[in-house]
């Protein structure tokens, strides 16, 4: 492996992020080629985390822009500080300064509120700019973003054109609630993060929940593999796995059994329908799989898990 990729992987690991070669390579290329990195994947697989860790690894600031429907240039680029402008106008009410001068004054940089995009452009050293869940913003805004990402300069009518001092490292994430446009996609490097395999998830649980015992950690990681093979409205991600692990420990469970799972279903499944479906249809089946796996030689492998899942009888309906 290229030494720099190894270094990035180690750096990500050092920041508590379990990174595989795919992810490390993408991050490395985003830094090398200075192209935005578009990360897609289901909710809760650690997309946002990549940007945070990247900022720490590059020892620079993270500027975050959370997208939502209706996000516009005003809230993402800049806004005038109206309160301050009003006060200023009041204070100068009786001065002899001509109107044009007063107007120029209140539309100058001290009265400018920098929103994330402008902040990223004018930042002292290249920051990591995280544009989170950009699928939630409207298409119009996406076009606007594309413009900023191409030129790295913005024009404020009252002040003029501001060029980026340093081109930021950009990470975009998307949950795919809306298909992003081709133009934006083509501007970016692409990384798809899937739900983790057994080994990776086990490593994450051990890393993030150090108090956990080996058996419970293995059972949890295996249980998650089985859960993700079932059809649910919202498949739980890594965030849920970690919450669940913490909850099980807090309730002093040292292995998985029906009680333990039933007590904590709400932590794992955020939708009532899913929790109900698992309780009534899937629970025996899932725990049966874990029990079958318990009879397999350790350490467990993804193959063993897939084999057990394949052999198991289908759940009651």
């Amino acid at each position, binding site marked *: *492996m*290229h030494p720099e*990729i190894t270094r990035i992987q180690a750096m990500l690991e050092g920041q508590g992020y379990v990174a595989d*070669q*795919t992810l490390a*390579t*993408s991050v*490395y*290329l985003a830094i*090398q*080629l200075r*192209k935005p990195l*578009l990360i*897609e994947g289901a909710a809760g697989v650690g997309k946002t985390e990549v940007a945070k860790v990247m900022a720490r690894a590059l020892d620079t600031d993270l500027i975050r822009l959370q997208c939502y429907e*209706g996000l516009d240039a*005003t809230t993402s680029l800049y806004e*005038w500080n*109206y309160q301050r*402008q*009003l006060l200023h*106008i*009041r204070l100068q*009410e009786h001065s002899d300064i001509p*109107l044009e001068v*007063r*107007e120029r004054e*209140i539309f100058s940089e001290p009265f400018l509120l920098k929103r994330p995009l402008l902040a990223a452009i004018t930042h002292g050293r290249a920051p990591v700019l995280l544009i989170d869940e950009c*699928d939630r913003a*409207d298409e*119009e805004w996406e076009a606007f973003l594309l413009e900023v990402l191409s030129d790295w300069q913005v024009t404020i009518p009252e002040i003029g054109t501001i060029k980026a001092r340093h081109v930021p490292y950009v990470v975009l994430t998307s*949950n*795919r*609630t*809306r*298909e992003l446009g*081709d133009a934006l*996609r*083509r501007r*970016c*490097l*692409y*990384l*798809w993060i899937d739900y983790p395999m057994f080994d990776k998830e086990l490593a994450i649980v051990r890393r993030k929940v150090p108090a956990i015992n080996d058996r419970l950690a293995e059972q949890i990681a295996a249980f998650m593999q089985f859960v993700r093979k079932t059809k649910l409205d919202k498949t739980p991600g890594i965030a849920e796995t970690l919450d669940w692990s913490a909850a099980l420990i807090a309730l002093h469970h040292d292995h998985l059994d029906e009680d333990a799972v039933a007590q904590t279903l709400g932590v794992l499944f955020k939708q009532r329908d899913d929790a109900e479906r698992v309780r009534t249809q899937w629970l025996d089946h899932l725990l049966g799989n874990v029990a079958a796996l318990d009879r397999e030689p350790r350490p467990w492998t993804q193959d063993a898990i897939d084999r057990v899942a394949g052999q198991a009888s289908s759940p009651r309906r």
Partner: protein
Amino acid sequence: MSAPRLYGDLTSHVVAFCRRLRLHGLPVGPREAADALRALGAVDVGDRRECYLALRTVLTSRRDDLAVFDRVFEEFWNPPQPEGDYGPQGPRPPEAGGDGAQPPPALVEWLDEALQAQGDEPLPAYSPIEVLSQKDFSTFTAEELREVTALVIAIARRVATRLSRRTRAAQRSARVDLRRTIRHSLRRGGEIIELAYRRRKIQRVRVVLLADVSGSMDLYSRFLIQFIYALQHALGRVETMVFSTSLTRITEAMSEDDLRQALDEVARRVPDWSGGTKIGASLRTFLDRYGAQLLTPRTVVLVISDGWDTGDIDLLEQAMAELRRRAGRVIWLNPLLGSPGYEPICQGMRAALPYVDVFASAHNLDSLRQLEKHLAARRR
């Protein structure tokens, strides 16, 4: 790629590889090829996996691309060998005529017809439009085809325009525009007398079209596909998929500027045109693969099918139930509904019907005109 090779050699291979990806529908142009070379310059070219990951990061741009990329990568850099030799191999010579995949015969026929229909000749002035409007698509003669195609496109445009206008009027609301308000107030010494407003953004309807192109629909799909083409172009936010035994997304193919090119593209991508029908399985695929992205309470799902399902009826019913739950509105257009005495008795249609908001026909031009009404309304 495990042995070091001359850089120039690698460059031409990467460019050829990019071209191959492009042939398979990935959005790879000169800029991406240049990035690919830069990326390879930044990694260890002797490490096959690293090169693979680097190229994949640069040359794909959506999840669907990944499988295509993997296949092409494997073919290109590691073609199957008679001997057990896995050494680096040059690319295979490009196959004549690109992909080698022949469009299915039925589609070729109407590609030609569509081309004729696109001719520059104006519509004959004596065209008995009223007669055509009522006439079932399946009974058209070759001469009538040309003008009907033009009409279908005109109707689609009108439906689309009306639709967007109506939505605009319904969503009128205002919020204060602080920037302009402050500017005005300056003239009055900072006293805010008038508020400046700006209008809220229009929230547009999103339309998903699921069109049945199985054998039993052949007589109709040639018109409907043109209608879909025109609708997608006029309306913007339309996602189009076709299905017979499996589901294929053709939104991008249909967005070609030229109808013939679009249909060519569609022919290349749809493997099972005029095949059997598995509506249930196709809907299931749609829900799993695209549901999360496309289905919102503002989505109108338009299924165009005669309901003849040769697959699992339970599957169809479950899929329809979920579709209804997750979409804003489900409209089912059935061309057979126009035939006198038609009853939706075939099993598939019966299973789907309880979950449909609007059940309408799509057998002639008049019925297409009606579509506007259905698209704009909301579920009660």
